[in-house]
């Protein structure tokens, strides 16, 4: 089954994918409903990337599940990630 794969060491924590994802789902820029959630710990500076499946149930309710941008040639998070940290693996 096709899925997003995040290559953590490449991720620079910019959250551009959140913008792109929300635009795909709603036509709006609204990171709070993105299927991906990126945050960095202000003390350890560690970047954490959570995909929809890894979110809490409460969070899942507020966010769109990833549909791999099926109406697009390429998932928008993959297209706009500046470091190519996101890719699609597996097959439909």
């Amino acid at each position, binding site marked *: 089954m096709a899925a997003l794969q995040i290559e953590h*060491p490449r991720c*620079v*924590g*910019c*959250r*551009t994918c959140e*913008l*792109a994802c*929300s*635009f795909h789902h*709603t*036509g*709006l*820029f*609204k*990171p*709070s*409903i993105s299927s991906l959630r990126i*945050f*960095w*710990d*202000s*003390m*350890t*500076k560690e*970047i954490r990337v959570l995909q929809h499946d890894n979110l809490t149930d409460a969070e899942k309710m507020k966010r769109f599940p990833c549909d791999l941008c099926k109406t697009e040639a390429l998932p928008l998070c993959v297209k*706009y990630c*500046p*470091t190519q940290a996101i890719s699609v693996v597996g097959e439909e």
Partner: protein
Amino acid sequence: MRKIFSFAGRILRVDLTSGKMWTECTDQYALSFLGGRGVNQWILFKEVKPWMTAFDPGNRLIFGSGALVGTLAPCATRLTVDAKSPVTGGVGSGNSCGFFSAELKFAGYDHIVFQGRARSPVYLWIDDGKAELRDASFLWGKSTWETEEILKNKLGDEQIQIASIGPAGENLARTACIITNQARAVGRCGLGAVMGSKNLKAVAVRGKLPVEVARPKAFMAAVDHALEVIRKSERANDLKQWGTYGRATKLNEACLYPVRNFQDDFWDPSKLQKLLPEAYKTNWEVRRQGYLACPFYCSHLYEVETGNCGKLLCEGFEFNSIWNFMSRLDIDDPSAVIRLHAFCNKYGLDIDSSSCVIAWAIECYERGILTEEDTDGLKLEWGNEDVVLELLRKIAHRQGIGDILAEGCQKASSLVGRGAERYAVHLKGQDSMEAMRAAKGWALGCCVSTRGGTHTRGANLVELSHEVIDPELAKRLWGISKVEGPSSYEGKAQLVTYYEKLQAIVDSLGVCLFSSVWWSPDLLTPEDYARLYSAATGYQLDGQDLLLIGERIHNIEKAFNTLHASFTREDDYPPLRFTEEVISSGPLQGERLMKEKWDRVLDEYYELHGWDKATSWQTAKCLQKLGLQEVAEVLRKMGMLIE
């Protein structure tokens, strides 16, 4: 609230004296002034009166997001904060990267305008359109890093974005700045001190609201076009790889390094050799850091030893930190810059202004003007990181000699006297960070800057690569037949007036200057920004329209300076050190700025603006052309308009 695409649509007003808050619509300002810095400056001009001092409760402290912030427009992640400056007495304006600006829009506001002064320390908490002033007594005295951690824990959300001041701002150090994301500084002009004077420790924002563009398909096409332009740019790739520090050697060869308080503009290459970008990548870089919609991710996260404090993890530093802490203070331990940069961020100290005043003090000590009696027993020597760290701590807390240094070099030198004024290198009262003898267009842009010493108004970089600039491009962008080299004054007034407008545009759209033709002529032009802006807002503008708005914004700042600080032509001359003392080593040894040539280039610059050559003041005709009759009327009443 009237809907306005690409904006949150509301401006939050906060009276800290009464605790009252209210909102107004953004659209009354956005068409004329774009957003961000443009709207901030208009509100500042309208509401702050010349008789108010910077620390008067009547001063406004205005946070502004930009018109494109919160969208996928490349590099639209900048925040601008404006106020009357306690350093120059005129325009105060600072601009920073980070997540705060977009979060403010997602929280439902394009701008926050603070006025008044709280009775005791407070912070503003904005959560999805709801704003509340809260007690901040428990945060007073804390560093910006501690403040961020405590507030995030207290408010229970990692994604809250915080802009705060450290001890420097609390103690009204005129070298204080505002910090977001622990390392992104709204620097220069003493804005942290204005925040401190209002007893405002921090602003915390969290938002889940959307930013909607008017024509989504056209907007995404404009985004793709802009990203393609950036992808093809060779210089952009340089920035991507090394950040702003990528041109380390080239800028030293161009004699643009301040050395020992500008006693020279060329740094010993054997020292610079230890500090090349590759060394930081190999020895201290943990990872790269990017911010919303930024294709450059030019920031770096470093880990460094601090001796008795253990390891320090800090997002670091821009090129100016190398100039400030290394060549200016002649420190050649490469890891020092990471520590000094980090401590400035913690204290909420502007690195440019702080290092400049420290360099002035060290030179005064070297010349016997300051002695150990003045310096609390410290031996002020070049190349001594420990002394610099101690001075930074003293400045932030206004302790001992720090109380004088916290005033900035112009005011400090007046307090000290004894000839110390001669070594205070400042522009319009603000400590000057830039070496200016070698590159004339760069120097002109710094000297005429509306916010005092800075290269982020009209200063240009293209003269340094003049030999590869196509004359067609020169004609199209700047209206000159070719770009002359840095040693020539020819055509530099045109470059400066162009970049003044461009800087106003990018600060008002909320995009990064490094995405533009400022960093490299093959990057984004006003036409590219107009395409993004038009699709985002639905207001159809072209590049020329944007340049006109940029000129308007610049003229508001100019008028503010005339009214508040009485600046005239005299204030647009370089510090004497750059006209009377030559570069003493390196490829351009013997170079300096020439007074008579400066006279001519200033004439040319004022003429391009349509300003009066004798006084530098604005004319009624120029302001009318820009639709600023209201500004002209205020200047006329004060006898400061040339009819």
